[in-house]
Every structure is written in structure tokens, then in C-alpha cells.
């Protein structure tokens, strides 16, 4: 059939067309988001000139960094048509492990951080194993792990904060390099790595395929269970980084941190245009989603509006983003 068919003249699809089509789709969605953020920034600047000062914008980015990292992990889970509700608790557990490792076991800070990261990654892996090898539903499974991780956090600390006064950690949490907050740099680095994984690696291809059609992927000879486990491990790793950064910014391991983080992370993912059914979405959207939420929080505090309104506005933005997605489909 090779020789027979080759002479059939077809309209060639040049790579430029492909680039345009692919980028066009993602860009349109993200342009809308960026446009919305720009309008919001304009309004806030009009209401308070302090808003647009570089120092405030950097602060805004700093404030967005935690949810951005959590959102990156969540995007991986959601793209496979799953979800990880345990990230808030796993972050807390990771932060507590760092605190305990430094104060009780008195091991080097560097090793303590590693233990924290390992904790989160292992919990992510546990999620992945339960979901893919034991076929638990992601929502219920991670809900269970969420409670287990939170419980462990309280047990390990007896519910009390563990203060960590290490200069290196404080520097990471509150320091700046070239004026840019270090945690923002970490968040951007995480984004870059995540973006490369999703768009340029086999693992990333699998993440999209798992969300698109898991059975077809399995029947193409791909070890879907392994791939899913790795994906949830990545999500757990992101949660661990969040946990470590909690210690750095707060100077303490608080057993109560990270409550509601899983919902905010889901929100930024959805606002960023990732379908909760999986298979479709981008990490760039998630980052802008985090900036949008950061803008709302920062703007309201600059305008001296009670923080209760933050919750309300966040809800409105989520609904608007999803509505927009629906209209676009039609």
C-alpha cells in the first residue's frame, strides 16, 4: 500500500500550520486570562496607586507562590482525570517532618529538607499506588490520605508548633535574589520543570493520554499504572515543597497549615482552563490562575477590605472561569 498511496496528492500540513493551530488554542485561553488580570490590575491601580508599585507586585507574586506550586501538582493529577485532595495535609506533614528532623533529631538542615521532600513524595506515591493498582477512586482515596496525613501531623507534634530558627531556612522563606523573592523563583523553577515534563517528555504525553482515554492508552501497550503512580508522586512532591516553604516562611512547623490548600489548588487549575475531566489543559493557565487569585487577595488587603470578601470573590471568579469555558465550547 505504501507505493500505491504515496502518489496520492494531499494538501500538506506544514509545521507552521501545526504551530499556529496548537499554540493558537492554548494562547486564546491564556490571553483571556491575562487580559482579565490586566483589567483587574488597572482597576486596582485606579483605586489605589500603591497597587502597581514594583514592591507590591513582587509581594503579590510572593503571596501567589505557594498556591502556584500546589496548583502545578494538582494540574498533573487533574490532567489524568483524577484529583489529589491530600496535598494540604501532606504539605503540613512534610513541614512537620522538617521541623522535627531539625529540632528533635538535630540532623543537618540539608538532610531535614530532604526528609520533608521524601515524605510528601512517598505519600503521593501511596496515593498513586492505591489509585492505580488497587483501583480506588482518586477523590475518595486522597480524601482518606488527607485525613491520615493530617492525623499523623497532629500526633507527631501533639498539636503544637515546632519552632525552627535556622538562618538558611528563614533566608529561603523571606529573602530575595536580585529583588525577587526566593520562593517566587522556586515556584517559577517548579513551573519550568513541570512545563518541560508535560510538553516534552513521554511521562507528560502519558499524563494527557491517561486523562483522554486510559483504557486506550493501556491497550497501546503502555504501563498506565506505573505512569499514574509517578504522576501522583509528582503531585506529592509539589505538596512537599509547599510544606518546606511553609517552614521557611513561618519559621515554624505548624500542624494546622495547608488547610483548604487542595481547594485553592483545584481552583487555580480550573481557572487556568484545565478540564476536570482530564486530558485537556495547560500549566501556563494554572500559573496565571494563581496570579489571579493572588491579585484578588492582595488587592482587597490594599483596599482595606475585610478578608471575608476574599472567599466570596474567589468563588465568583471560579464560577466565571468555568462559565467562560462553557461558552467557548458552544
Amino acid at each position: 500500500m505504501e507505493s500505491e498511496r504515496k502518489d496520492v496528492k494531499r494538501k500538506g500540513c506544514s509545521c507552521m500550520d501545526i504551530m499556529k493551530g496548537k499554540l493558537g488554542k492554548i494562547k486564546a485561553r491564556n490571553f483571556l486570562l491575562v487580559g482579565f488580570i490586566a483589567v483587574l490590575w488597572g482597576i486596582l491601580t485606579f483605586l489605589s496607586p500603591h497597587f502597581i508599585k514594583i514592591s507590591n507586585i513582587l509581594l503579590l507574586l510572593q503571596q501567589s507562590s505557594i498556591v502556584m506550586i500546589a496548583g502545578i501538582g494538582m494540574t498533573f493529577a487533574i490532567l489524568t482525570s483524577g484529583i489529589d485532595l491530600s496535598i494540604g495535609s501532606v504539605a503540613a506533614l512534610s513541614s512537620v517532618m522538617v521541623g522535627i528532623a531539625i529540632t528533635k533529631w538535630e540532623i543537618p538542615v540539608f538532610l531535614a529538607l530532604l526528609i520533608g521532600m521524601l515524605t510528601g513524595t512517598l505519600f503521593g506515591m501511596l496515593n498513586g499506588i492505591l489509585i492505580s493498582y488497587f483501583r480506588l477512586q482518586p477523590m475518595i482515596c486522597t480524601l482518606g490520605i488527607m485525613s491520615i496525613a493530617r492525623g499523623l501531623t497532629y500526633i507527631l507534634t501533639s498539636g503544637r508548633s515546632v519552632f525552627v530558627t535556622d538562618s538558611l531556612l528563614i533566608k529561603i522563606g523571606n529573602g530575595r535574589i536580585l529583588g525577587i523573592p526566593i520562593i517566587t523563583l522556586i515556584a517559577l523553577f517548579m513551573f519550568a520543570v513541570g512545563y518541560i515534563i508535560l510538553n516534552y517528555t513521554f511521562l507528560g504525553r502519558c499524563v494527557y493520554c491517561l486523562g483522554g482515554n486510559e483504557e486506550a492508552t493501556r491497550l497501546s501497550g503502555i504501563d498506565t499504572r506505573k505512569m499514574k503512580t509517578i504522576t501522583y508522586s509528582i503531585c506529592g512532591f509539589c505538596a512537599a515543597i509547599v510544606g518546606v516553604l511553609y517552614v521557611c516562611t513561618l519559621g515554624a512547623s505548624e500542624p494546622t497549615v495547608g488547610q483548604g490548600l487542595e481547594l485553592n489548588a483545584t481552583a487555580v487549575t480550573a481557572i487556568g482552563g484545565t478540564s476536570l475531566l482530564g486530558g485537556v489543559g495547560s500549566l501556563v493557565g494554572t500559573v496565571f490562575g494563581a496570579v489571579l487569585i493572588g491579585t484578588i487577595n492582595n488587592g482587597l488587603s490594599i483596599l482595606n477590605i475585610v478578608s471575608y470578601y476574599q472567599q466570596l470573590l474567589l468563588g465568583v471568579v471560579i464560577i466565571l472561569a468555568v462559565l467562560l469555558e462553557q461558552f467557548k465550547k458552544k
Partner: protein
Amino acid sequence: MQDEIMLKLEHVVKSFPGVKAVDDVSLEVKKGEIHALLGHNGAGKSTLVKIISGAYVKDSGTVTLDSEEINLTSPQAGIKKGIGMVYQELDLIPDLSGDENIFLGQNKFRNRFGLIDAQSRRREAERIIQNFDIDIDLSLPVRKLGVSKQQVIAIAKAISREAKVVIFDEPTAALNNAEAECLFGIMKKLAGQGVSIIWITHRLDEIFETADRVTLMREGKWITTKEIGQITMKEIVTELTGVTEEEQISTVNISNKTDEKLISCQNISAQKLFQNISFDLYRGEVLGITGLIGCGSTEIAKALFAVNKLSGGEIYIKGKKIEHFTPKTAAQKGIAYISEDRKMEGLNLKGSVQNNIVLTMSKEWSKLGFLNQKKEKESAKEMVETLDIRISDLSQTVNTLSGGNQQKIVLAKWLLKNAEVFVMCEPTRGIDIGAKREIHKIIRQLAKEGKAVLVVSSEVEEIIDTCDRVIILYDGRVKGELLSKDCAKKKMLDTMYGI
């Protein structure tokens, strides 16, 4: 009564980005007639009936039902007006009972307390079903019924609201011959009661027995509408494909079979699905497995790709006994699996053409986990050209493609993998004649190139056209084995029915 116009379409147009799916189509459907609608995949017939049913909103033109102009905006609105649709993939809720499904969304069976009156609903459902002379236990959840009975439930659902027009979208795709006959009986009965039937089908032989008139479409345009007696099958095929008659004659099978056994199954069984099946598949051979639906043929195919587990027997690939069989190891050993359900098991519908085609090879080509995107693009492009897959560009998502093109993408996946054994289940289900012929050609070509192909099909013609040898199953056991050159249709059908 026969000459009263029930449904009238005038200059209907519907465009999608880049394609005019329905281009200025005018059509009249008479009261109580069975009107067959034929066309290639992508000819616009599905789009046209979706406009009639209300699932799509037309761009321009008018639709008149029972001399009243209608502008539907949703299928619900269509149902209210009396347009019922029986979808190819039946839109039933598996865990609800038959009568619950039939009257789903209708709020009419209430007792005086405003609660659901299940008894009168059951009675009403039974009344509708009795009409069809079929015995169905309406109390069972519909997933426990066979496909043909489920279809009767879907038909009952479509007509339960005094439908004036009922649209059937390829209703016989999942039925065996006896079930199809039964369905035609129902259609005729409905027509006799004054219901107009629009019937989309790919099986030409069916329409001559059952339809009154036939409309042909090609590339979104109306070609002709004829009384069924005024057109022959050959004329229809010529009109639909635009191919001249010489080319239609199928190529004579020249066997390329060698002596090298690629797969050998010995006494394989799987619970109640099939028992003690043994066969060998040789390099260069196209082996068919056929039988009535439920005979176990699909399950055997699935067992060869480790989708189903065996309860007994052994599979040897190139003489080596297989243990710890998974789809992954099957793929590594050179087996390709083309599922009967390409949407659920074959394709990532949300993914691009390119990503679907290269899925089987992405890992092998990638270095240190990084995709070799240049190679992926080149290979995908080559496959698109080789198989003549009609797409606008490689980043197009596959859910926008027609069935034939989707199936070619599934084939492309495994051609790229350079698989040696192709296990194909119903390879041309829901595909138009043109694409069907192309896929049959590909099957023969694969054998010529020294691959082995196992074709599982319930379509006798498909088996005759493609296979060197055929195994006929009846109720999970081998009933007969024939060489293709001795294959008479009658003989094969008799064996399939267990005679």
C-alpha cells in the same frame, strides 16, 4: 396517506469551521414511509439528522414538520414536537429498568399523592412493547438485556411520546441477522401506523427489503431521492463513492500463507465465554473468526491481547509459551489489537492526530524520557499519507474525524509499531463503503507483507472478502472451519446458526 408530506427540509445549510457539513439540502419525507438515508462517512447525513432532531441548530434553510415550520434548539424540543431518535450507541441508563428508561424524563405516571405510579407505567410500557411481538422482561435493569432488546427499549422510548418521525442511526450495526430481521419488522409496523422513519445505514442489502425510498448524499450535498424499485445496488454504490464499476470488483484472494506459526492457541477457555478453542495463525495469513453475536469471537481476540484472562489452555507466540500476559507484553511481542470499540479502547479522542498515531512508539523513540518530537511528526505525517487519512492538520483532535479516518489512525498506531500479528475486531464497524474497501485492502496488503491478521467479524461479506481461512463459532465452541475459496455465503451462515 402515503403521499402526505410529514417532514420537509428546504435549502438546509450547516457549516463547521472549515467544512460545509450540510450544503443546501432539500428533502421530503412522506407520512408512514421508511426513508433510507445513505452516504459516506462525512457525507453529512449524521449532521442532517441531528438538525432534524434538534441536536444541531442549522445555519439557514427551513424545516417543516406536519405543515408547521419548526426551529429546534435542543433534542428535548425535538422530542416534544414528535421527533424521536434511536442512536447507534443506545442512550439508555444501564441500571434503570426497561419501563423507567422508556418514560425517562416524562412526568406522566403519578398517583393521587403525586408519587410515581410504577404499575401503570409498567402497564403502559408493556402495551408499547407488545406491539413489537417481543418478549422483554421490563423489570430487569437494561444492562442485563441483550443489545437487540436494549434497542427495542430505545425504540419504545423514541415513540413513547407520539412520535411522528423516528430517526434510526445505523440500527443494525450491533445486531445479528435474525435480530436485524426482527428490527425491520418493527420498522415496518411503525410505518404502517403512520410514523415516518428516517433510516441511516451502511448496509445496502438491507434497504431493498425494507425501505420505501432512498436518499443519497455525498460531500454534504443531496444527490438524489429515488423509489427503492427504481435504483439498483450498483447504481447506489456508484453514486455514493463516485467510483466506476470496474474498480468495485474485489480483488481475488491470493494466499500469502507461509508455514511459520506466529500464534498458536491450544485449548484456550475463558469461563462461560468460550471453551477449548485451538487454532494456529501463520505468517502471511488472514484468518477470520466469525459467528453470531455472543459466540465468543470478540472474547478470543481480547484474550490474545491479554484484555481478557484465560481460565485454561495455552497461547504460544512464535513457539514460546506465554506467561504473565499483559497488554504491554503482548505489544512488545508484536501483537497489535484493534478493538471493536475504537472510541473507548482505541483512541484518545481529546488528543491530536499525531499524538494518537505515535502513542505506541513514543517511549521507544524518546531519549532519557524526552520525546523525539521531530521523528514523531515525520512518522505521523508519513502514516497520514500512506493510509490516506483525511485531516486538516496533525494537531486536529481525533474526535472531529469520521469513523473511517479514526479507524485508520488506530491502524496507523500499530503499523508504526511494526507489529507482526494484527488482531482486529469488527474492523469496519460503522464505517462507510469507501473506507471499508480501503481497510480491506490494507488487511490484504498486511498479509502480503508477511504479517498475520486475525479478523473477527460478524459480517459474512467482510470475512469472504478478506480472509484465507475462517473459523466459525457457535456458542463459544468451534463449529466449523472453511477455506475462503470454498466459502459459500449460505454454507457459512448455516454454520453460524449452528445447523
